[in-house]
C-alpha cells in the first residue's frame, strides 16, 4: 500500500497531499501544546521521587558521650541515618598511621571530604579520637574494624591495623585513609563535629573559631 493513499470505507481513495495545510498546522500546534502539558503533568510525579521535606529535615546533630570509651575501643552512632565511628586511638594506633603512609592512595587527604579543621595524618581535632562516617566510598557498605596489626588480622603481615570493607575488600587505615589500588577511590569522609567538653562531642555541627 502506498503511504500517501488512504482507503476510505466507500472504497474511494484520496491523496493526503491535498490535506488542508492550515489544519495541518493547527494539528501540529495542538500536538506541541499537548506535549508541553504532558511534560508539565509529569513534573510532580518526577518530583515526588526527590527526598521529602521530612527526609531533608531529619539531619539533627547528635551528641555523644565519650567518657566510657576506653583506649583502643570504637563506638558507632547514627547521624543522618549513617554510621559515624568514634575510635579512641592508642599511641600505638597513632604510630601505625606513619607506617601506613606509603601504602595509601591519598595520604594527605587532599581529595577527601572533610572539614578544614581536621588536618594532618590523624584527620582529627584531637588526635586521640577519630570521628568519621563509616561508609565505604566505593559503594557504601560499612567496613569492619580490623584493629589488630600484622598476620593475626588475616589480611597480611604488613597490615598496620584499620578497616576492611566486607563487600569489595577496600582497606582503610586507622585514620580512614584508603589504601592504594582499592575499589574505593577516596578516604572515608569526616563529618562536621565539635567538642563541647572533654568528653562530649557533637556530630553534625562545625567547630567555630577552633
Amino acid at each position: 500500500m502506498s503511504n500517501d493513499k488512504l482507503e476510505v470505507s466507500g472504497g474511494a481513495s484520496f491523496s493526503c497531499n491535498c490535506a488542508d495545510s492550515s489544519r495541518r498546522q493547527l494539528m501540529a500546534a495542538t500536538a506541541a501544546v499537548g506535549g508541553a502539558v504532558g511534560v508539565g503533568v509529569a513534573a510532580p510525579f518526577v518530583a515526588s521521587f526527590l527526598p521529602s521535606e521530612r527526609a531533608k529535615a531529619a539531619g539533627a546533630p547528635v551528641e555523644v558521650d565519650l567518657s566510657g570509651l576506653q583506649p583502643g575501643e570504637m563506638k558507632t552512632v547514627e547521624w543522618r541515618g549513617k554510621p559515624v565511628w568514634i575510635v579512641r586511638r592508642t599511641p600505638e594506633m597513632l604510630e601505625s598511621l606513619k607506617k601506613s603512609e606509603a601504602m595509601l592512595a591519598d595520604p594527605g587527604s587532599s581529595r577527601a571530604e572533610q572539614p578544614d579543621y581536621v588536618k594532618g595524618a590523624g584527620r582529627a581535632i584531637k588526635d586521640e579520637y577519630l570521628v568519621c562516617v563509616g561508609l565505604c566510598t566505593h559503594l557504601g557498605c560499612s567496613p569492619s574494624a580490623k584493629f589488630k596489626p600484622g598476620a593475626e588480622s588475616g589480611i597480611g603481615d604488613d597490615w598496620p591495623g584499620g578497616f576492611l570493607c566486607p563487600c569489595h575488600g577496600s582497606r582503610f587505615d586507622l585514620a580512614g585513609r584508603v589504601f592504594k589500588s582499592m575499589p574505593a577511590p577516596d578516604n572515608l569522609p569526616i563529618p562536621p563535629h565539635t567538642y563541647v567538653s572533654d568528653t562530649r562531642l557533637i556530630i553534625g555541627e562545625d567547630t567555630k573559631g577552633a
Partner: protein
Amino acid sequence: MSQMDTLLDKGKQALGWVDERFPLTSLYKAHLSEYYAPKNFNFWYFFGSLALLVLVNQIVTGIFLVMHYKPDAALNAAGVPVAFASVEYIMRDVPGGWIIRYLHSTGASAFFIVVYLHMFRGLLYGSYRKPRELVWLFGIAIFLCLMGEAFFGYLLPWGQMSGWGAQVIVNLFAAIPVIGPDLSIFIRGDFVVSDATLNRFFAFHVIAIPLVLLGLVTAHLIALHEVGSNNPDGVEIKKKKDTNGIPLDGIPFHPYYTVKDGFVAVVFLMVFSVVVFFAPEGGGYFLEYNNFVPYDALQTPPHIAPVWYFTPFYSILRATTSNFMWVLGALALIVGGLTVVSTKSKNVKALAVGVTAILLAGFALLDAKVWGVVLMGGSVMLFGLLPWLDQSPVKSVRYKGVLYASVLSVFVVAFVLLGILGTKAPGYAFFGLIPGEPVAAVCSVLYLAFFAFMPWYSRMDATKPEPERVTWK
C-alpha cells in the same frame, strides 16, 4: 434430536454470539489450534512455557503475600522493623503463609533458572536470527524487567541483605559522572536506604514492573507467533508448505505441544515442590542467611553477596579495577582495528575509529568504578546485539562448526565461573590455591570476547550445509 445434540447446538450458538462480538475462535485458532510449531522441538523448548508457568506462580503468590505484608521501615513496639516483622508474621502466624512465601521466593530462583536455560536455547539454535530479532529483543527487555523485579523485591523483607544489597546497587548509579550522586538520592528518595526507598520499591515490585512485564510477555508471544518458532535445525518450516498452506514440518500447538508442555509442567512442579518443602532456602543461595536478621543501617554483615542469579554480572563489576582498564583498552583496540581492516565502507571505518577513540579516552579519564557499572549493565545488554553480531550462514549449532561449539562452551564455563566467584568474598581462592580475582578477570574478558569477536569467528567457522527439512526421528 438427542439431548446431547441440543446442548452442543446451544453451545455453538453461544460461541457464535461471542464471535460476532469478540474474535474468540479466531484467536484460539491463530495462537493454539492452528499455530503450527515445528515438529522437532526437543528438551530445550520446554523452558518458554515453564517461564510462563512460573510467572503465573509469582503473580498469584504475590497477590496473596501483599494481603499480609507491610512496607514499613519504622520499628514496632518490639523494636523490630514492621516490614521484617510482617514477613515473619506471614511465616509463623498466617495460615498457609509459609508455603505461599516459599512458593514466591523459590519461584524467583526458578524463574531465573528457567529463563537462563531458555536464553541458552537461543544461543544454541540461533533463535535470535532473522526474522526473530524482535522476539529476541522483547525477550531481553523481559530479562531486564525480571532483574529489576528481583532487585526491588529483595528489599521488601527488610533484612540485612535487603538493605545492604540495595545500598550497594543504588550507589552504583552514584558512579555516573556529574549526575550520579543526585541520581542515587533520587532513586532512594532519601540520603540513605530508608522507608521512602522501601515504599517505592514496593510500588515498583507489585505494580509497575509486573504491568510492563505482562505487556512485554504479550509482545514476545505476538512477535513469536507472527514469525513462527525456530527449531533445533534452525531451518524455516514456512518454506515448505502443503497445498493448504500449512508447513509440512509443522504441527498444531494444541493439542500436540499443550500436552507435551503440560507433562513437563508436572515434572517441573515435582522438582519445584521438593525445593519448596525440603530446601526453601536453597542452601543459603535462594534465601540468604543474613536476610533473617533485620536491616541495621550501622553494620554491614561480614560477608555480603547478591543472590546467585546476579552474581555473574556482579563478578564482572568487581573484576573491573584500574589494572583491568588496560585489558579493556587492548580489547577495544583489537576490535576497532579488526573492524577497520575487515570493512570496505569508509563510514564504518570512521565510526570504528571514532568509537574506539572515545572508548580509550573514556577508559583513561573516568574511574574504573564507572566502567565497572557500565560493564555490568552492558554485559546484559550485549545479548541484544546478537542478531547483528552473528554472521554465520546457518542458525543452529548443529550446522555451525567446531569453532562456535567451542566458543559457546567457553562462554558457558566463563559465565558459570563468574557466577560462582560472585557468591564468594573478595580474596577467595578455588581450593585455597587458585586466586579468584585473576580468574574473574579472565572470565570477564572471555565473556566480552564472545560478543566482541562474534562477527569474525562466526564467518570463519566451517559450517555444514543445512537440511531442506527438519530432521526428526
